[in-house]
């Protein structure tokens, strides 16, 4: 591997890491900050991707599809929180696991009924459908770079929301002691509904924006679910910063792993997770 290709692989790794952050950001919020184990995270990712596909084939534009789909997923998130999740906050985590596992099955079946079992492609928006030549035979798709930009903006926005705003303060306070926050006169129920809906919308948004790259297919959510949990566990529960660091580390490890030690590339991230769990059980940026 000469130096130019090393740099390109570095870019690949960072870009993949940012993509992972995007996909895991909804889980960071719901699992990391609200403390709810949401196994259906991947299903919302899939719902987002299928919405992007069906709405963009109706409207002819991915941008329009995303603008239409985001409110839909926010409503979906609020409804689920009101009807289902709200009743489980005080219960053991096992109940959340059972509920969200059930949701995986429900969403997968609904997907099959509504959209069928075919593989579908979503066109890259014309404006971003170009490539930048890097070497004589390799070029880099502009859309991938654009997604990286969106990921960075999203990361900054999330960090600002949670660490710097009043709402963020209330969210963090609610996460560490719900009853106390409530007795201080803050409408914690509303805040939880909002945060949950935001988390769902983020997962779905990741699916939408990633749809042109990944295509849209059954069980696509299952693939992202595990890696999202790895991101949150390595990064540390409750830390947006940690999730970002973990995403980048995983992105680089996977990229260079595939090239340098292809035989064990599939295990690398899990070995990494095991090491982090032994060395820092609270995660890289987690609160001990």
């Amino acid at each position, binding site marked *: *591997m*000469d130096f130019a*290709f090393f740099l*390109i*692989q570095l870019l*690949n790794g960072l*870009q*993949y890491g940012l993509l992972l952050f995007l996909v895991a950001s909804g889980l960071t919020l719901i699992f990391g900050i609200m*403390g709810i*184990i949401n*196994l259906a995270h991947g299903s919302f990712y899939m719902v987002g991707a299928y919405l992007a596909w069906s709405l963009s084939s109706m409207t002819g534009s991915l941008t329009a599809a995303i603008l239409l789909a985001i409110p839909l997923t926010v409503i979906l998130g609020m409804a689920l929180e009101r009807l289902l999740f709200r009743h489980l906050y005080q219960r*053991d*985590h*096992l109940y959340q*696991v*059972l509920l969200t*596992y059930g949701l995986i099955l429900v969403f997968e079946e609904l997907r*099959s009924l509504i959209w069928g079992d*075919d*593989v*579908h*492609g979503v066109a890259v928006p014309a404006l971003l459908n170009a*490539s930048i030549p890097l*070497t004589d*035979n*390799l*070029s*880099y*798709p502009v*859309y*991938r770079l654009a997604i990286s930009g969106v990921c960075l903006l999203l990361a900054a926005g999330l960090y600002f929301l949670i660490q710097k705003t009043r709402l963020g303060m209330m969210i963090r306070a609610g*996460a*560490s*002691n*719900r*009853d*106390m926050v409530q007795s201080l006169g803050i409408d914690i129920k509303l805040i939880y509904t909002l945060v949950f809906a935001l988390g769902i919308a983020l997962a779905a948004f990741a699916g939408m924006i990633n749809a042109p*790259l*990944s*295509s*849209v*297919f*059954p*069980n*696509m959510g299952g*693939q992202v679910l595990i890696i999202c*949990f790895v991101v949150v*566990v390595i990064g540390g*529960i*409750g830390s947006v910063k940690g999730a970002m660091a973990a995403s980048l580390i995983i992105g680089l490890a*996977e*990229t260079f792993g*595939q*090239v340098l030690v*292809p*035989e064990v*590339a*599939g295990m690398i991230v899990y070995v990494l997770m095991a090491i982090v769990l032994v060395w820092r*059980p609270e995660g890289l940026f987690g*609160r001990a």
Partner: protein
Amino acid sequence: MNKNEKAGYDRREFLLGSTAIAGVAAAGTLLPGGTALAQQGKLKVGLMLPYTGTFAQLGVAITNGFKLAVDERGGKLGGREIEYFTVDDESNPAKAPENVNKLVQRDKVDVVIGTVHSGVVMGMAKVLKESGTLWINPNGGAGAMTGAACAPNFFRTSFSNWQTTHALGKVLKAKGHKNAVFITWKYAAGEEMMEGFKEGFEKEGGKLTKELYVPFPQVEFQALLTEIASIKPDAVVAFFAGGGAAKFLKDYQAAGLKGKIPLYGSGFLTDGVLDAVGDAGEGVETTLHYADGLDTKKDKAFRLAYAKTYKLQPDVYAVQGYDAGQLLAAGLDGVKGNVSDKAGVIKAMEAAKIDSPRGTWTLSKSHNPVQDMYLRKVVGKENKVQGVAWKALADPARGCKA
């Protein structure tokens, strides 16, 4: 720690949750499935195929094809009516022995038809070798089924993974490519296809420069595409399927490699995904035992009948299911429906010449099809046949001593 303090809970609870999922998944197999006692005289056919999950459509296509073959014979095989028993294998290898036992021990079927996933196929092989039940596999290409694990009662009407890429060596040589890299998922089917290609290509004097593996079922190809660009081989050969294949074709184009380094593959790379990939598949050449535009009488008749019955276009999986029905019919005709004469059925099936939509084929000694492999090229939304890449290709059936 206060009971209400949630932020600091640890991962043990998450792991506990995972165990619960496994429990729930296992409970799914307890669904009521028992049918009343079989009526006397009917031939009991057990269909063990995926009816849910990623491969659900393949399971349906195979079932449709099989039933079409039976319906064409007036709903009877060897003069006997058919009673179907169905098990959804969910493409789950862990549950394969349990699922096949439902058909063999509970329903006492005369013949098992299944399945798509190679891992499940190998799970079935263990049970069926012991029970000796007739078995026709209409898809899963695991080499071992008609190789090291072969048995007199095992039959396959589809392909071995090795077969789907072996003919590509000749194709690449004819195009003047001297070296190539192979890229696929790191799992059994991918590795077997890689072996099939490597053997065929090296026999022609070609050199497989590098084997590139993506962990299954990941679809992040960017790092390896960069690797391909730095190696600059004469050609790239790939095997992916379904959503992974669609993404690979699009990424290959987006990385600027399309048109610079020609792409070849096992036919599954371009089957069932062409609607999803736009023009990213255009011109990609693959080998498989079926193609669009074969234009034979049998193929035309089959396509018409299938479309009329199911309001769907048939695919290679439907053909494999149809041929499973045809092979079983040949076996039962040979013994006039007396399925208890197992040796007679096996003999008749071994001797059968199957008039398939893909062209006529026979069985090898290890009961895998000896069949023509077509060279196909993506033109628009079709895998147009370009010619026969290898006439009557037989799997080497390594390790088969039955």
